[in-house]
């Protein structure tokens, strides 16, 4: 299987195979974002559906493989329809919780049985409006499959007090990936269950360590503070420990970002590195340090600029993710064949899209 064709590797990419490339640019995206945001505000939110389409078309269109950009085909009207239905459901729900809390309870089974349906519809929509070289992606997952992967395996994780959570994450990732196709060719998740257990447990372990350090350090500092100040007053002790508490706060903040960056890196690499598409393979080599740095500087940038840094933050993240990926084709990329997909009714799909279900892929 591992018969990758020799290709000129990009100097920047540390990943084998043909590189995925991004031409997205922060300044360019800022202008798109802000103009569309203005249109959204003056149309009281209605235009946001079209704004979303323009953003996605920009990001798809600036991402390319083998010299051809990806394309997003969703339309503003499709997104708007889904959003209106979703908005109606949420409005009914919030009115019920306000005026008839008991009636709102019927939303629990609706949510329970509706979630898998929404997941299938959202993923199907997202895939069918994505293409490369005029061949579309598709999703073949069934309602039953989503029910098992998202609810069934979740219950397994829950009754084992979270010990089997990595199994649940693996099952649902496998459900999403293995049911996705490009043209007539299916994707297949290569990462093993063991790999999911490894990174999930490491992330949880670091998190637990942070909690323990805080739980020990703060009382210890307070004791030290009250001993030094010869005062038993807890407020005074807290005040004298103040500078140290700020340091602990900052370190906790950094540790949380590190955990998020570690998990994101590990999960994304697990999904995409080795991902099979027929005989072809995707490669992904995100580095923890770089991802951590981007996360941190993005949040700082957003905080300092009151959110105006958002377009640059989004572009930086996307560029790094795209440029960490490569494609190892087995033979020519010209011979992938389209699937004869029926143009199905899309109402449900748009509805799913409205919830912005994020598969973390």
């Amino acid at each position, binding site marked *: 299987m591992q018969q990758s064709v020799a290709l000129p590797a990009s100097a920047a990419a540390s990943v084998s195979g043909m590189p995925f490339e991004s031409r997205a640019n922060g300044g360019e995206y800022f202008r798109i974002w802000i103009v569309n945001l203005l249109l959204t505000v*003056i149309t009281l939110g209605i235009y946001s559906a079209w704004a979303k389409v323009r953003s996605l*078309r920009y990001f798809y269109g600036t991402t390319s493989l083998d010299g051809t950009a990806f394309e997003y085909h969703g339309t503003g009207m499709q997104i708007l329809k889904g959003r209106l239905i979703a908005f109606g459901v949420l409005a009914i729900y919030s009115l019920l919780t306000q*005026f008839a809390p008991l009636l709102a309870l019927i939303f629990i089974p609706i949510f329970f049985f509706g979630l898998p349906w929404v997941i299938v519809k959202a993923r199907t929509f997202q895939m069918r409006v994505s293409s490369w070289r005029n061949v579309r992606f598709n999703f073949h997952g069934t309602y039953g499959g989503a029910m098992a992967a998202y609810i069934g395996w979740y219950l397994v994780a829950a009754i084992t007090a979270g010990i089997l959570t990595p199994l649940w994450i693996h099952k649902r990732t496998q459900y999403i990936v293995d049911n996705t196709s490009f043209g007539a060719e299916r994707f297949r998740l290569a990462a093993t269950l063991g790999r999911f257990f490894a990174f999930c447990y490491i992330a949880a372990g670091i998190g637990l360590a942070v909690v323990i350090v805080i739980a020990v350090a703060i009382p210890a500092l307070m004791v030290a503070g009250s001993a030094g100040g010869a005062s038993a007053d807890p407020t005074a002790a807290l005040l004298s420990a103040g500078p140290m508490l700020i340091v602990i706060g900052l370190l906790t903040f950094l540790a949380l970002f590190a955990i998020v960056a570690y998990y994101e890196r590990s999960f994304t690499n697990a999904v995409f590195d080795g991902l099979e598409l027929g005989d072809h393979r995707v490669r992904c080599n995100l580095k923890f340090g770089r991802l951590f740095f981007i996360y941190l500087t993005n949040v700082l940038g957003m905080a300092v600029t009151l959110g105006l840094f958002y377009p640059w933050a989004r572009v930086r993240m996307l560029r790094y993710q795209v440029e960490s990926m490569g494609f190892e084709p087995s033979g020519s990329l010209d011979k992938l064949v389209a699937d004869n997909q029926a143009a199905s009714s899309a109402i449900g799909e748009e509805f799913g899209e409205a919830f912005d279900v994020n598969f973390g892929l």
Partner: protein
Amino acid sequence: VTPVQGRFFDGKTTAAHAATLSIGADGFVRIEGDGWERSVRLDEVEISDRIASVPRRVRFADGAVFETHENDPIDEALLGLGRHTFHHDVARWERHWPIALASLVLIVVASWAFVRYGIPAIATVAARVLPPAVDRAIGAEGLEILDRTFFEPSKLPAARRAALTARFRAMTAPLEDGHDYRLEFRSAGEDGANAFALPSGIVVLTDELVALAEKDDEIIAVLAHEIGHVRGRHGLRMILQSAGVSVLALAVLGDLGSASALAAMIPALIHAQHSRAFETEADEFAKQWLREHDIDPRSFDAMLCRLAEGESGGDGDGDDDRFDFLSSHPPTSQRAQCATPPVAE
């Protein structure tokens, strides 16, 4: 029009074929590849909107696509044929920095104006449409919850309570606005001088406030303020306005994601602003009512000033001005003239 170079994808495989496309003044689209050519009417193809320098897509009825990086000639051809669309303008605005920066300013101004004037106006109209029964449904259990968690039964003498209740009835009876007004007494412990109204029409007065008042007129002034809240349907309007702000925030900030904690603070700030507008409205109602019933409106000021003193540990009013924008009530210095000497009588 100058032919543009690009690639043709038939939609059956990923194979790319070099091709040239031109849009004629006759309204026909001609595409030419190596040894083949097609010519169709412009109405039969779908040309994607321009976005930055993202490749342009010309989609044929059979699903085949021609893709080109040459955006300008396509725009020229379409404009030449009078095919001007809104997104043509959007794409032009997106290319210019001055327009982008002007958009930023307009977003701030438009959002502010809408939150300040638009949402309250819409909420007022909506509240007028909804029957008073809706007010009764809001927080119907509010007082029971407070009784369980916070309040003690009132220790005021029954005669005192009866006297105040009689005055309250006399105040509310002529209003005839569909609300079931009712006065309740509770004890809230030290520093508990307070009065508030529930949307259902229940006004709660604490023993401590009654004790703080030097004259009954001051209590009447506070009651008038609370009646102002009920009569103005501030509870319902607040819910409607918060919902409006949430919808707006979702639309505008939705794609900022949860990363921006600042964005999450904005609805809270707006909530405080709206709450202060309601306080001002209730103040105005109270003063107007006092004037109409020949009670010195300064008794309202006197009561507010004394309440403010109690809160700030006796160093006068207005010391909370620094956190003006976070407070749910306007600063006392704006609501009452505390410098005024006690009402002479």
